[in-house]
């Protein structure tokens, strides 16, 4: 802490929040410049969790790199896996068989629900609503059980392979998913009864961290954070990948771009994901799980950019191949990294307590930011 006298007889205070602060969701340090309780400037210090994922991508074969990617956004590991596998498949000029595609969409959407549930629980906890956390984790557990039954892991799942999926669905999978999906929309309503009309919740979120659509695009916000500002853009609709074009779902948008709108967008997204899952589980086609491809994966010389809609935003992969078994360059465009950049302008002028709300609403995962 240090103080500096300012012109108007008040003192400017520098407070370091984190890296061991419970509300920063990992090892994020925010250096706040304060004028009393008001934030003048916020500077993020990141990199505490840097593991050199992009360098590892150049030193592992294409297949070996997939489980490493699960360790980036460990809350939504399935999305990471999907984006990368699809990028390499695009380079090789193959597509996964329909059965694998449906399983992929199903798992990714279930994973989107778990990611949003974890966001909801921790975000509400940060703002002071303890109960929602317990409810959200109850449902999240059900999905993690499905993942565990399917592939043996709960978080870093490594479900997909380049060219398809590895595992066949287990017996009783459809029923387990159906049971979950049948009740889930009611559960979302239940969370909403705790928050949506809650005066404290509205007071803490409405008008906090508002960002206009133009500013959001300029700073590169994507995902629910962008849609909260009223931009109707979702890669699942704009550039459909996998078999998303087969399903009916809506893209919820907000209008004011504040924390409350982003909350509403994510709540609705959970319902829409449940809608996709309920459609997908009814029409999983029969057939093989893996496309025919050689054991050694050698994409042709060239480069590719493929992006998908991860729960946090646009997750892009820029892969350069030199024709060997390892990527020449494996760039990841992490949504959290770019979204966190907006923190500075979103908290300026707000109270210290609102910084916690804004970090929560950006839905960051430090594993993905630092890579």
């Amino acid at each position, binding site marked *: 802490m240090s103080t500096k006298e300012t012109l108007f007889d008040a003192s400017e205070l520098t407070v370091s929040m984190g890296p061991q602060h419970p509300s920063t969701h990992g090892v994020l340090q925010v250096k706040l410049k304060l004028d009393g309780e008001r934030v003048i400037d916020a500077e993020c210090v*990141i*990199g505490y969790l*840097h593991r*050199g994922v*992009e*360098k590892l991508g*150049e*030193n592992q074969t294409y297949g070996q790199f997939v489980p490493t990617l699960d360790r980036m956004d460990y809350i939504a590991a399935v999305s990471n896996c999907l984006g990368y596998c699809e990028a390499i498949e695009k380079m090789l000029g193959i597509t996964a068989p329909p059965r694998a595609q449906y399983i992929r969409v199903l798992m990714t959407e279930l994973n989107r629900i778990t990611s949003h549930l974890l966001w909801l629980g921790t975000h509400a906890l940060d703002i002071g609503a303890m109960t929602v956390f317990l409810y959200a984790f109850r449902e999240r557990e059900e999905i993690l059980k499905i993942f565990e039954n399917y592939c043996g892991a709960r978080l870093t799942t490594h479900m997909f392979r380049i060219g398809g999926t590895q595992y066949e669905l287990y017996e009783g999978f459809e029923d387990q998913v159906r049971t979950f999906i049948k009740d889930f929309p009611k559960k979302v309503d239940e969370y909403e009864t705790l928050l949506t009309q809650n005066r404290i919740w509205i007071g803490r979120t409405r008008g906090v961290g508002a960002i206009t659509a133009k*500013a959001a*695009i*300029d*700073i*590169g916000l994507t995902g629910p954070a962008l849609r909260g500002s009223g*931009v109707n*853009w979702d890669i699942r609709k*704009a*550039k459909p990948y996998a078999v998303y074009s087969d399903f009916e779902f809506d893209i919820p948008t907000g209008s004011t771009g504040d924390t409350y709108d982003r909350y509403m967008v994510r709540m609705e997204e959970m319902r829409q994901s449940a809608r996709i899952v309920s459609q997908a589980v009814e029409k999983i086609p029969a057939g093989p799980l893996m496309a025919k491809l050689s054991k050694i994966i050698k994409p042709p010389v060239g*480069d590719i*950019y493929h*992006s998908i809609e991860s729960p946090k935003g*646009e997750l*892009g992969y*820029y892969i*350069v191949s*030199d024709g*060997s078994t*390892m990527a*020449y*360059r494996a*760039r990841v*465009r992490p949504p959290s*990294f*770019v979204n966190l*950049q907006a923190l500075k302008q979103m908290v300026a002028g707000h109270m210290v307590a609102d910084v916690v709300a804004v970090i929560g609403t950006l839905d960051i995962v430090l594993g993905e930011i*630092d*890579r």
Partner: protein
Amino acid sequence: MTFLRDASIGQFTYLADETAVHWPKTEEFELVYILYSFEKNQYLRIKTRTKEWEAVQSVVSVWGTANWLEREIYDMFGIKFSGHPDLRRILLPEDWVGFPLRKDYDLRLQDVEWVRKHLGIESGQKYYVGEARHESPDYITPTD
């Protein structure tokens, strides 16, 4: 770049990604800009090459996103951006030596050197001296 953002043919208002690739044989960096236009629903990839020692014009004034992306490129490749408001390392500590995503920054070599320096013994780990995958002109063997 400003033309691409504002002109009616594109309106590429969103910079999805900016990154670099190192090509040591020609001592060049390739800068890759990935733009997106909401109006046209179209991605655009712009690639430009620069010599290793040359500074590049920053695009922060055109797209705010580029701020951290260019800091990361500087951090990982050592490319200097002229006109960048705050060009510091972002993921690595300030006192870090070297630029990890350059091709001459060899991972296995780092391991061997660390063991030699800190433990005073020769590492038994295999490293690929002659058959280094991305051979660069300034690739040094551990015995140098």
